[in-house]
C-alpha cells in the first residue's frame, strides 16, 4: 500500500514536471520574441531614422530577419513540386531571389512602424515542429493575428512559414508559382522575380 502510494507520487511528480517544463521554457516563443525585439529596437532607434541612414537600417533589419528565417526551407516549400526538378545552381539562385522578394514586399511595412504592440498568445510544440501565435495590436486597437511556424534545425528554431489573418505566406506563393510555372515555364518565373526585385 505504502509502496503504491510512493509510486503514485513519483509518477505524478514526473507527469507534472514533464508537462510543465516545455511551457516554462517556451523556446520557440523566446526566439521569436528576441527577433521581434531586435527589429523593433532598430526601427525605433532615432539615430537610424534619418534618410541618410536608410540603407544601413535596411541592412540591419535584413540581418535580424536572416538569423531567424530559413529561406531555403521557405523557398523549397513555396516551389513545392517544382523544387526537385531544379539544378543546384537554380535552387541557390531561387532562394536568394525569393528572400529578396520577401524583403521588398515586407520591409516597407516594417519600416512604416507606428507604435504597434505585440502580444504573445501561446505556442504548440510537436517534436521538431512548433507554432507560435501572436497578435499585433495597431494604434486603433485592431488585432491582427499572426502565426509563425518553426522547425528545429541543426542549431536553432527557424521560421519556415508565417500566417497573417489565417493566410499562409508559403501557400500564397505556392499557388502563384505553381500557376506561373504550369502556364509558362520556370524561366519565366525567375524573370518575373528578377523584374520585381531589381
Amino acid at each position, binding site marked *: 500500500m505504502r509502496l503504491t502510494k510512493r509510486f503514485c507520487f513519483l509518477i505524478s511528480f514526473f507527469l507534472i514536471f514533464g508537462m510543465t517544463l516545455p511551457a516554462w521554457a517556451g523556446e520557440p516563443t523566446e526566439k521569436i520574441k528576441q527577433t521581434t525585439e531586435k527589429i523593433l529596437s532598430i526601427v525605433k532607434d532615432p539615430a537610424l531614422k534619418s534618410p541618410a541612414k536608410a540603407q544601413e537600417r535596411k541592412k540591419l533589419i535584413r540581418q535580424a530577419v536572416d538569423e531567424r528565417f530559413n529561406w531555403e526551407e521557405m523557398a*523549397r*516549400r513555396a*516551389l*513545392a*513540386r*517544382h*523544387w*526537385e526538378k531544379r539544378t543546384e545552381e537554380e535552387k541557390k539562385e531561387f532562394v536568394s531571389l525569393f528572400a529578396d522578394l520577401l524583403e521588398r514586399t515586407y520591409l516597407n511595412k516594417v519600416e512604416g512602424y507606428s507604435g504597434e504592440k505585440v502580444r504573445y498568445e501561446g505556442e504548440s510544440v*510537436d517534436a521538431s*515542429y512548433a507554432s507560435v501565435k501572436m497578435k499585433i495590436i*495597431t494604434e*486603433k486597437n*485592431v488585432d491582427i493575428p499572426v502565426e509563425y*511556424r518553426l522547425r528545429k534545425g541543426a542549431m536553432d528554431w527557424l521560421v519556415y*512559414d508565417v*500566417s497573417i*489573418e*489565417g*493566410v*499562409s505566406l*508559403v*501557400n500564397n506563393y*505556392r*499557388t502563384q508559382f*505553381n500557376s506561373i510555372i504550369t502556364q509558362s515555364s520556370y524561366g519565366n518565373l525567375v524573370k518575373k522575380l528578377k523584374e520585381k526585385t531589381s
Partner: protein
Amino acid sequence: MKRLDLELAVGLFIIAGIICLGYLSIRLGRLEVLGNKGYEIYAMFSNTGGLKSGSDIVIAGVNVGSVKSIVLDNYQARVILNVSENVKIQEDAIASIKTKGLIGEKYVEITPGGSDKAIGPGGRIRETLSPVDLEELISKFVFGKI
C-alpha cells in the same frame, strides 16, 4: 395454387422494392457500407467554419476524397480525411478550408508540397489553414477605419 403464385409475385416485388430503396438511401446518403477505398489521414484546425463530414477534399479542383468525421480534440478540431488510394499527399502539403463561392458550402483544399516523403495512413497534415472569417474581416475593415 394460383393464389400462391400471386402471393409469391407480390412478395418478390416487395423484396425487390426494399433492395432498391436500400441502394438508393446508401447512394444518396453517401454511406460507405461496401468498404471505402482509400486511406485515412488527419489534420488539426483551430476552426472548421462549418465543415461537415462528407465534405469534399480537392486538389487543383479535382475531388480526391471526403471528410470522414470531425471531432473535438483539446479544443481544436481534428478532421479525419479519407483520401483516394492513388493520391499521395506529401509531408509538407497544406490543407486549407475554403468556401465554394462567397457563401457556399465548405470544402478542404490541399495544395501539394514538394517533399519526397508522403503521409501514410493515419498520418497527419501538419500545415493547416483555418477558413478566413469574412464577417470578422468586414468588421475589422469597418471598425478599423475610424
